[in-house]
């Protein structure tokens, strides 16, 4: 075996969208591992302009192998044997005779030299690179050319000291990388050993951890609102991140925090700074892609941009105040909710009715009435992501009671599974009314999500309904709220399963078992799930579940439709009678207290008693006993859904 070699692949591109980079790296790793080239460690790195995979311990050559080639039969004429040997380029004595199922045959073991790893890589890497999945790709060399997230401009591919040679999209692989766009050189010769250091010399910090660490470290000295998501984003938007601190006129602090923070965070990628008492300070922190700002150009530039943006926001805030939310309701007649589902005015009226039906009080109904009025405000037109929040803020200023403005403020929540549900009951009711109305309407007119297409974000809406009902402990009959739509029912069934499995961590068979016993009341469903989960720790649980499955199979095979009472007179003394007595004793008790005494009786019954008794009456009575037992203990879950090892 020859020495082991390091491998370096750098795909040099134009700026890749920050949020796609982690997924692309994981993909690159999988595609590389699929090549089945032995290696030790893999290291993945990326900046906006490069995706990098480094591996150690690759063999220069794959191991040699042997191929078994079957020759003529031993009985074949000598000429045929010589002919075969000649064709293989060997002497007849290089062959051996082996007995096969067809008889004795000549066999030749051909030595196949392992291929050069470099050749394998050269052949495979173009496919690996173009195989990386991105949500949206482009052509750059012309129609029909390769597709990638952004144009590929250079490729470094080194195995040990050698270039792994290939061409992709007109780019030849080599040993030249490229530094920071303005602080580094455009072409830099690298080796596997000095690659990372050479990049550093040209103002590129290769490691994402180091870049985000650098940002975090510089922020540590300042009282900024923690925002790990923004650190991540900026670390993938820069190759050499450095923070700078800027300020704005304290006059702008008269605007709501939410508006200032949104402008800074979502429009400018700035960190907000907090002052005494956790209030916003008239300052911000930006991250730039250069090392320093000695003349203050970057700081002043950012301050001016922020000033212009805040001025706009203040102008909108003041203009919007000239008309109250209540006075804007009529304008919703001109705002389309969805072409087939009418205007927002109609939607709001449906929401008001629904809020009352859901048990909402006068505050909830009022909040529903005003919930969409902010769609006509300038501020929401400018900062769409603040819909709801802006309505809540205006309602507060305009003297609506606290439960009302908070409900308006929160009613788009939860925006994701990580987001919290509305903070008060009225908000939960309005959020439910809004989402259920959208879901019912869309399903009615056939706007049903399919595959990855979900333009009205109905999955998120349904997931939100489930989360609010479960975490808000709202004991509402979900199935009665779906307008009798079978498609919507099936859609929700998936969402409920997803929620309890993926978000709440219940095992899939526990979820199936409990949902089989009903899932309209999610609070009740959750309580049963908790019970089944703790039952699972009992040693009797899985055997009993297996028996329940057996009972169900027996009942199904016998096409037993139930009904009828157990006739005690027909019960045989012994295990059958014992099981019946145990059933009478534990009937009405929670399964937790019955399980340990019930299980041995059930086991013994199956051990000793033949359910399919020749006498039809006895058989039927036994089936009735089993079916009654199953029904008694299936109110919290259908235990036959539990997956057991036995």
């Amino acid at each position: 075996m020859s020495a082991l070699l390091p491998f370096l692949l750098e795909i040099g591109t134009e700026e890749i969208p920050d949020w796609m980079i982690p997924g692309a790296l994981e993909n690159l790793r999988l595609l590389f591992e699929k090549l089945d080239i032995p290696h030790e460690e893999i290291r993945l790195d990326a900046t906006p302009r490069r995706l990098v995979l480094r591996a150690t311990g690759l063999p220069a050559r794959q191991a040699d192998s042997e191929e078994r080639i079957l020759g003529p039969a031993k009985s074949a004429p000598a000429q045929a044997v010589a002919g075969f040997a000649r064709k293989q380029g060997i002497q007849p004595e290089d062959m051996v005779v082996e007995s096969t199922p067809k008889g004795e045959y000549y066999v030749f073991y051909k030595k196949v030299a392992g291929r050069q790893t470099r050749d394998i890589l050269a052949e495979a890497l173009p496919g690996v690179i173009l195989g990386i999945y991105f949500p949206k790709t482009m052509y750059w060399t012309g129609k029909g050319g390769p597709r990638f997230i952004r144009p590929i401009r250079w490729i470094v591919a080194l195995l040990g000291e050698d270039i792994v040679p290939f061409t992709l999209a007109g780019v030849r692989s080599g040993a030249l990388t490229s530094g920071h766009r303005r602080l580094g050189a455009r072409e830099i010769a690298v080796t596997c050993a000095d690659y990372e250091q050479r990049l550093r010399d040209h103002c590129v910090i290769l490691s994402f951890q180091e870049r985000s660490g650098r940002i975090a470290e510089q922020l540590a000295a300042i009282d900024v609102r923690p925002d790990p998501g923004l650190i991540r984003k900026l670390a993938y938007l820069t190759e050499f991140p450095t923070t700078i601190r800027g300020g704005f006129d304290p006059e702008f602090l008269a605007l709501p925090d939410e508006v200032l923070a949104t402008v800074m965070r979502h429009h400018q990628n700035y960190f907000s700074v907090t002052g005494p008492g956790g209030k916003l300070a008239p300052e911000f922190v930006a991250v730039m892609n250069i090392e320093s700002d000695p003349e203050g150009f970057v700081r002043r530039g950012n301050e001016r941009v922020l000033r212009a943006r805040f001025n706009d926001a203040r102008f909108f805030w003041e203009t919007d105040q000239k008309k109250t939310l209540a006075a804007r309701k009529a304008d919703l007649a001109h705002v389309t909710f969805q072409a087939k589902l009418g205007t927002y005015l109609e939607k709001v009226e449906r929401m008001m009715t629904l809020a009352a039906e859901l048990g909402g009080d006068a505050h909830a109904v009022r909040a529903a009435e005003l919930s969409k009025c902010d769609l006509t405000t300038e501020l929401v037109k400018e900062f769409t992501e603040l819909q709801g929040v802006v309505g809540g803020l205006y309602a507060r200023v305009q003297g609506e009671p606290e439960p009302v403005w908070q409900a308006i403020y929160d009613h788009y929540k939860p925006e994701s599974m990580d987001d919290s549900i509305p903070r008060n009951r009225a908000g939960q009711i309005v959020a439910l009314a809004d989402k259920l109305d959208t879901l019912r309407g869309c399903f009615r007119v056939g706007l049903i999500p399919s595959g990855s297409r979900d333009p009205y974000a109905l999955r998120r809406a349904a997931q939100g309904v489930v989360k609010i009902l479960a975490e808000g402990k709202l004991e509402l009959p979900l199935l009665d709220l779906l307008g009798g739509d079978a498609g919507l029912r099936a859609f929700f069934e998936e969402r409920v399963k997803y929620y309890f499995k993926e978000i709440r961590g219940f095992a899939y068979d526990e979820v199936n078992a409990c949902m089989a016993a009903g899932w309209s009341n999610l609070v009740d469903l959750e309580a049963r799930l908790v019970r089944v989960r703790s039952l699972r720790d009992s040693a009797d649980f899985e055997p009993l579940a297996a028996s329940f499955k057996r009972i169900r199979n027996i009942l199904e095979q016998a096409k037993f439709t139930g009904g009828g009472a157990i006739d005690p007179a027909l019960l045989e003394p012994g295990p059958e009678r014992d099981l019946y007595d145990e059933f009478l004793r534990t009937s009405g008790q929670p399964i937790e207290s019955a399980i340990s005494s019930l299980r041995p009786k059930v086991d013994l019954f199956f051990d000793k008693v033949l359910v399919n008794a020749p006498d039809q009456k006895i058989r039927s009575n036994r089936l009735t006993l089993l079916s009654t037992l199953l029904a008694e203990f299936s109110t919290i879950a259908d235990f036959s859904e539990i997956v057991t090892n036995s």
Partner: protein
Amino acid sequence: MQSFQEIILTLKRYWAQRDCVIQEPYDVEVGAGTMCPETFLRVLGPDPYRVAYVQPSRRPADGRYGDNPNRLYKHSQLQVILKPAPEDIIEQYLGSLEAIGIDLRKHDIKFEEDNWEAPTLGAWGIGWQVMLDGLEISQFTYFQQCGGIDLDLIPAELTYGLERLTAFLQVKDSVYDIDWGGGFSYRHVRYMDELQYSVYNFEMADIPTLWQLFDLHEGEAGRLLGLYDPKSPDKKRFPLLPAYDQVLKCSNLFNTLDARGAISVTERQAVIQRVRKMAVAVAQAWVDQQSGAPAEVAQ
């Protein structure tokens, strides 16, 4: 300090030195430089092209009566089309910023994902907004489709917001304070347009008349497009360029009606579709017309 016009001249010279045709603005109202035939039609088909021009771009709804320091009814875009995009296109673009005096070792430049799309043109591309010290100064797009047609050669489109860029360089908080050149301010040159067009677009444009004009231009475009015969030996004579002017007229009327508040959200989609249908039809006919006579076009 460079004046507005010096910046424009420098950028034009920069791109002229990189073998671009320097065009004058198109003389029909458009909402963006992309809509000019020099971009919309030239990016179609297999022939390379390079062009740069300043296009006054009208966005009636953005008018603010000359009161807002950053928003304009009509702003100036420098539009550069490089078809196909050269490999060092980003370097060339950064070079143009350095040419107007921005030292990029002392300023922060970032390319943030922003995929451009123009539904009325059936056009979209992949690219970035270019941020300079937190200010969006350019849109950078690799066109993928135009008029609903996949492009043969992928052009790069660079769009510079000239007022913003100049205000940045001149350190002005209001575009109206920009020094235009020759001792005149931007206010001096442009204030009256902003004021009067805002009054017209928001208050006085006659809605029925605008709808009528829309219908007339749409009718004329449709009439012409209906007459185009791909099999005709004389098809290269066919006036597709004038037909496209009709589409541009419709697009600007749509924008004006929209600013005037005359288009409900429901209607909006339908009107966009009407414009798009014409634009797509022109693009398709144009590709056919070009493929029929590439040699003559080249002359």
